[in-house]
């Protein structure tokens, strides 16, 4: 049996067992050519029965991208939504084909043009796919930065429009009538003058052979013409998620597959000194052990993880049982092994006290402080934080001499393709990635070296598919962290309590994604003199983008400090913010005021509450300092604290902008609800600490996740339109839960806490 046949069998088995609906399945090109299912373009396949398959180039990890991407295509395609099936796009094909040149130009005039493609980001492109590959077939296969809609909308709409026009051209050709006399709706093409109709499925084979004569003339629908986009659509994968049929990476099963359990050195930068496989060799099912080095930093965006060892066995539990008993000794860099959270905190304090990189210096801050009637100073800190997605890292890899196949839930398959090629020497066009659903993501770098571990292991077992699965404890080692952070804010207030000078210093580990938080662009709230400096340190903990990135920490600093200033000024925190936004020249300040007013009104701001209950308000925006894409909202958090110190987020009122239009408002609501839970956990419960150089909280008994009992009983979400395209919904909404709970605790208990999480503090009162 040739290797090719074997592979085909694997794929056929997987496709048959799980359904092509779930796995983006690969077919040899010859077989593809023989199938009766015509591909209209790289994004769209239409069956004879009018089933429309839409290729999805991002990974579905709960954010609803399977549905929203399909909606953007199908808005233009004008097909029957009930017959749409998403399928993952092929990262292999992406390595071999280019996007049509006419799709590379973004139509329209940027973020404030409703007729255009908005403001997609294809900056810092490189061929590893770190930021997407600008001209590859599927452009941006990464799933990060809440950007799937912002970046993909225009070319997904174009893909749908091109397919629609070719279907119409094919029908016109068939009937020998002018194409202008045809209309398309719900997969039916009608020629009104003659009363003839046909369906997309009927003309799809002809459309597949009909090129568009002038594709550069194709336009996309502006929001006022949308009929599918902008409507609430249930996520297309929900039916398979309530029956257990959805296939995640962990569920992949292949004939002849063996399982690998892994132990990597808990101290980053460490490696295996020796291990004694003989001690476990005779255990049931155990086959062999494989050592692998620290993943090449070229594959992990420069981050240094650890070397490790894997035991391979017939079942994963056998492999895991054996590796738990196998003696392993580590070689650990002495300087890394000595590190503790306290030392790191001290290093941040030292760094923030020294001159940093001054990024903004407006007016005369020192003169402002000198003439201020009152000085307010505060130091805030935020811990390292893990993503702790529910599905532990895993990948199934088959390496042969001329080809690599990888089954994985992956937020950046273009990078994984690069890694596979670098590790195995097999060229990228021969790397095939079969994307699976992902059991939570929360930051692309959070994938850690799951693919690299599996590829390195399988590369030493060419010809055998290896399914590598991390334990929960290993998942906490194989991830990057949101960097620990520190901020010092100092404001000078005039006699009426308005800030006349503000100095902000933030300190975060290098590469910690701190400055993204926009302190480097604006103070957001009006102040005549403003200085911002960023300070960094170097630690050995690998840091990366976690939901909310540095912005989440910075929003905690900024909005907490605004509450403190309002209190120092003796003013209402809502009115105080409103006035300070009104005094700015921010292009979207009217939208910000609208958000504040709406959230305050929704919450009954100012009406009496029972003792032990308080409200807090905050503004949330990203991009609002400029005049491009932005997302703007305000939230009011109603919080109770019992005398015993039990905190309950009782109610959240959310006023949120839609920009020119939300693609799927239902999905947006779910994202807001989910992020309320996310930032509630950041605020109340979670912290990652370091002892002896390793992460201490390595399972859910130490890294707590809130349960349904802590979910706010009431969440009210109201939308308002704005005149720009949104910047994204998936990662920095509801950051204000952090400052909101803090200010409510202050109002109720009289205690102000400036370091998270709040649960570590004494919150009792009498």
């Amino acid at each position, binding site marked *: 049996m040739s290797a090719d046949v074997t592979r085909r069998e694997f794929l056929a088995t997987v496709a048959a067992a799980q359904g092509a609906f779930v796995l983006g399945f690969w077919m040899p090109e010859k077989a593809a050519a023989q199938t009766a299912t015509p591909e209209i373009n790289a994004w769209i396949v239409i069956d004879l029965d009018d089933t429309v398959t839409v290729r999805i180039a991002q990974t*579905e*990890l*709960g*954010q*609803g991208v399977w549905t929203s991407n399909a909606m953007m295509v199908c808005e233009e395609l004008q097909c029957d939504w009930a017959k749409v099936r998403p399928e993952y796009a092929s990262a292999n094909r992406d390595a071999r084909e280019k996007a049509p040149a006419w799709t590379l130009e973004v139509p329209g005039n940027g973020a404030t043009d409703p007729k255009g493609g908005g403001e997609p980001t294809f900056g810092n492109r490189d061929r590893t796919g770190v930021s997407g590959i600008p001209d590859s077939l599927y452009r941006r296969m990464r799933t990060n930065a809440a950007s799937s809609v912002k970046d993909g909308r225009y070319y997904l709409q174009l893909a749908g429009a091109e397919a629609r026009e070719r279907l119409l051209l094919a029908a016109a050709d068939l009937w020998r009538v002018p194409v202008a006399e045809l209309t398309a709706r719900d997969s039916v093409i009608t020629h009104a003058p003659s009363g003839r109709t046909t369906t997309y499925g009927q003309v799809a084979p002809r459309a597949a052979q009909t090129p568009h004569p002038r594709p550069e003339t194709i336009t996309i629908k502006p929001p006022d013409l949308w009929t599918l986009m902008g409507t609430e659509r*249930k*996520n297309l*994968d*929900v*039916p398979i*998620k*309530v*029956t*257990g*049929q*959805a*296939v*995640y990476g*962990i*569920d992949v*099963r292949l004939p002849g597959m063996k399982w690998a359990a892994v132990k990597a050195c808990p101290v980053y930068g460490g490696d295996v000194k020796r291990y004694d496989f003989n001690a476990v060799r005779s255990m*049931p099912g155990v086959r062999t052990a494989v050592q692998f080095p620290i993943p090449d930093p070229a594959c992990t965006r420069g981050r240094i993880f650890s070397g490790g060892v894997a035991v391979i066995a017939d*079942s*994963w*539990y056998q492999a895991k049982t054996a590796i738990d008993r196998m003696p392993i000794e580590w070689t650990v860099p002495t300087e890394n092994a000595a590190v503790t959270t306290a030392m790191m905190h001290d290093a941040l304090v030292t760094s923030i006290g020294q001159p940093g990189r001054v990024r903004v210096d407006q007016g005369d801050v020192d003169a402002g402080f000198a003439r201020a009637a009152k000085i307010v100073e505060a130091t805030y800190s935020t811990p390292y934080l893990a993503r*702790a*997605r*529910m*599905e*532990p890292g895993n990948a199934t890899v088959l390496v042969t001499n001329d080809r690599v196949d990888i089954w994985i839930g992956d937020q950046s398959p273009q990078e994984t393709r690069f890694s596979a090629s670098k590790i195995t020497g097999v060229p990228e066009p021969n790397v095939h990635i079969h994307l699976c*659903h*992902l*059991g*939570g*993501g*929360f930051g692309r770098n959070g994938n850690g070296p799951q693919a690299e571990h599996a590829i390195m292991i399988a590369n030493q077992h060419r010809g055998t598919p290896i399914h590598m*699965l991390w*334990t*929960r404890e290993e998942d906490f080692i194989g991830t990057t962290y949101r960097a620990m952070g520190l901020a010092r804010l100092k404001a000078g207030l005039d006699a009426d309590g308005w800030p006349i000078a503000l100095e902000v210093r933030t300190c975060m580990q290098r590469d910690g994604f701190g400055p993204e938080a926009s302190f480097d662009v604006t103070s957001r709230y009006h102040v005549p003199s403003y200085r911002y400096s960023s300070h960094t340190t170097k630690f050995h903990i690998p840091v990366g983008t976690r939901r909310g990135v540095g912005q989440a920490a910075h929003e905690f600093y900024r909005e907490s400090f605004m509450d403190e200033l309002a209190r120092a000024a003796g003013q209402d925190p809502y009115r105080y913010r409103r006035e300070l936004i009104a005094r700015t020249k921010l292009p979207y300040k009217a939208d910000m005021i609208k958000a504040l007013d709406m959230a305050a009104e929704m919450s009954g701001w100012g009406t009496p509450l029972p003792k032990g209950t308080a409200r807090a308000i905050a503004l949330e925006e990203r991009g609002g300092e400029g005049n491009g894409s932005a997302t703007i909202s305000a939230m009011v958090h109603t919080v109770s604290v019992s005398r015993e110190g039990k905190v309950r987020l009782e109610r959240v009122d959310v006023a949120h902008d839609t920009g020119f239009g939300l693609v799927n408002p*239902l999905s947006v609501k*779910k994202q807001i*609800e*989910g*992020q*309320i*839970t*996310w930032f509630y956990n950041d605020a109340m419960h979670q912290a990652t600490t370091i002892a002896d150089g390793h992460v201490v909280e390595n*399972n*859910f*008994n130490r890294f707590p*996740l809130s*349960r*349904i*009992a802590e*979910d*706010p*009983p009431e*969440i009210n979400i109201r939308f308002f339109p704005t005149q720009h395209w949104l910047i994204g919904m998936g990662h920095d909404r509801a950051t204000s839960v952090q400052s909101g709970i803090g200010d409510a605790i202050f109002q109720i208990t009289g205690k102000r806490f400036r370091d998270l999480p709040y649960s570590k503090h004494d919150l009792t009162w009498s």
Partner: protein
Amino acid sequence: MAFDLTVNGSQHRVDADPQTPLLWVIRDHVGLTGTKFSCGIGQCGACTVHVDGRAVRSCSVSASTAIGKAIMTIEGLSADGSHPIQMAWKELDAPQCGYCQSGMIMSALALLRDRPRPTDADIDARVTNACRCGTYHRVRQAIHRAADLMNGPGRPEGLQLRKQELR
């Protein structure tokens, strides 16, 4: 060592160490992957199945404890999503990444058996599964909705639920 397990009404001959956690026997020997592994220490509930009608965290009990008992997994509700609790979940569009939802549904179902009209306090006490996406808000509504679907007007409480489970 081989032993028999009854899963979703069918008997399966399993050739494994009976001390293997029930989760891994269900996933790797019986071949039902809807039940998920996440923490391995009985904390998160992603692996929740029913053993003789009780919700059990299958990563933390050995398969031997389920011998001779009726095991039900997410696949045992209905393959087409027609069980009322699945219908309610779909109506509310509850799942996000979906990874914890099999366990969440199994916990909710065990609650609904004991309390056909659960209060919010009942839900808080009994549905202690972790969800990282933050689907709790919709899960709570879906549980109430499932209770409505199962105990519609004129029906004795819990009757339809029992029917579904006996299928």
